[in-house]
């Protein structure tokens, strides 16, 4: 909520890093270099998350995205791209078309971001939902700048919301309607991950193909 002094140097640095990484991913032809620029972009986005006081999300971004997903993609590059297949050219017409459409779409989003009065929109949300507020206030040992979202996120994944319900004014009959947490989506995500694990291992396993002519399995 510090609107006046403008973005800090680190904010600008990480914003420029993420944008430049993303543009370099689009522009580079070599798929290995694309993976490298993707690491730059995702790492800068993790820095932006830390600057937004979202320490747990930033750490998860570094661990799962940069440490897991990109490594998975690099394994995919290693297993599929051999020699001449490393670079597959795109026709100039397609490049021109998608660059034009992308520029138009970007112009639309930028004009929308500039046109909306975000402060008034935030005040409208705050009026409609009295329990909502800035992310974390008062709980935990640290100041928000040093990261204290871990406990509220853990509690929300267990289904209780101390970040919204603690310290609220009771209603007319002296009771507080508790906010909802994320226990069911958490469970669904865990079962989904299990299914994905089994499915990916089944799909990617080495198959024994039978050669039709000689009858030998290869």
């Amino acid at each position: 909520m510090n609107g006046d002094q403008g973005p800090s140097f680190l904010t600008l640095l990480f914003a420029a890093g993420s944008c430049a990484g993303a543009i370099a991913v689009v522009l580079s032809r070599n798929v290995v270099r694309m993976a490298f620029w993707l690491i730059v972009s995702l790492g800068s986005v993790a820095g932006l998350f830390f600057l937004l006081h979202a320490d747990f999300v930033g750490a998860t971004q570094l661990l799962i995205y940069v440490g897991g997903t990109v490594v998975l993609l690099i394994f995919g590059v290693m297993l599929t791209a051999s020699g001449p297949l490393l670079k597959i050219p795109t026709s100039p017409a397609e490049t021109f078309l998608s660059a034009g459409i992308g520029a138009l779409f970007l112009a639309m989003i930028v004009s929308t971001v500039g046109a909306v009065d975000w402060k008034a929109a935030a005040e409208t949300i705050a009026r409609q939902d009295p329990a909502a507020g800035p992310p974390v206030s008062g709980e935990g040992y640290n100041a928000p700048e040093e990261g204290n979202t871990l406990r509220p996120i853990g509690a929300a994944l267990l289904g209780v919301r101390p970040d919204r319900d603690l310290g609220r004014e009771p209603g007319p009959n002296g009771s507080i309607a508790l906010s909802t947490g994320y226990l069911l989506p958490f469970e669904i995500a865990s079962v989904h991950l299990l299914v994905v694990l089994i499915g990916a291992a089944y799909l990617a396993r080495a198959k024994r193909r039978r050669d039709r002519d000689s009858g030998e399995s290869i």
Partner: protein
Amino acid sequence: MNELQLYLLVGAVLFVCGVACMTTKRNGIGVLMGVELVLNGANVNFVAFSRYTALGLDGQIVSLFVIVLAAAEAAVALAIALNFYNNHLTIDVDRGDQLKG
């Protein structure tokens, strides 16, 4: 320009780069990287709204779910890409036109 708009612009650039990556790359892995960029652009918006508006912690939790589901999606898509490579001996997505009829 306040900080929320800066973050929204970063999210917009990531999203548009991801869409351009998905449409122009013929390498299947490159298409996957475009998907990751799109999901990251959405995540930047979620966390920025969680910081600067009354959305609160919900934005951060939704972005956590997005990260987890993106990892799952990458694993399955990579398995599919490996199968595609086994069958076609290339990763060019333009060659996957066997259902063309």
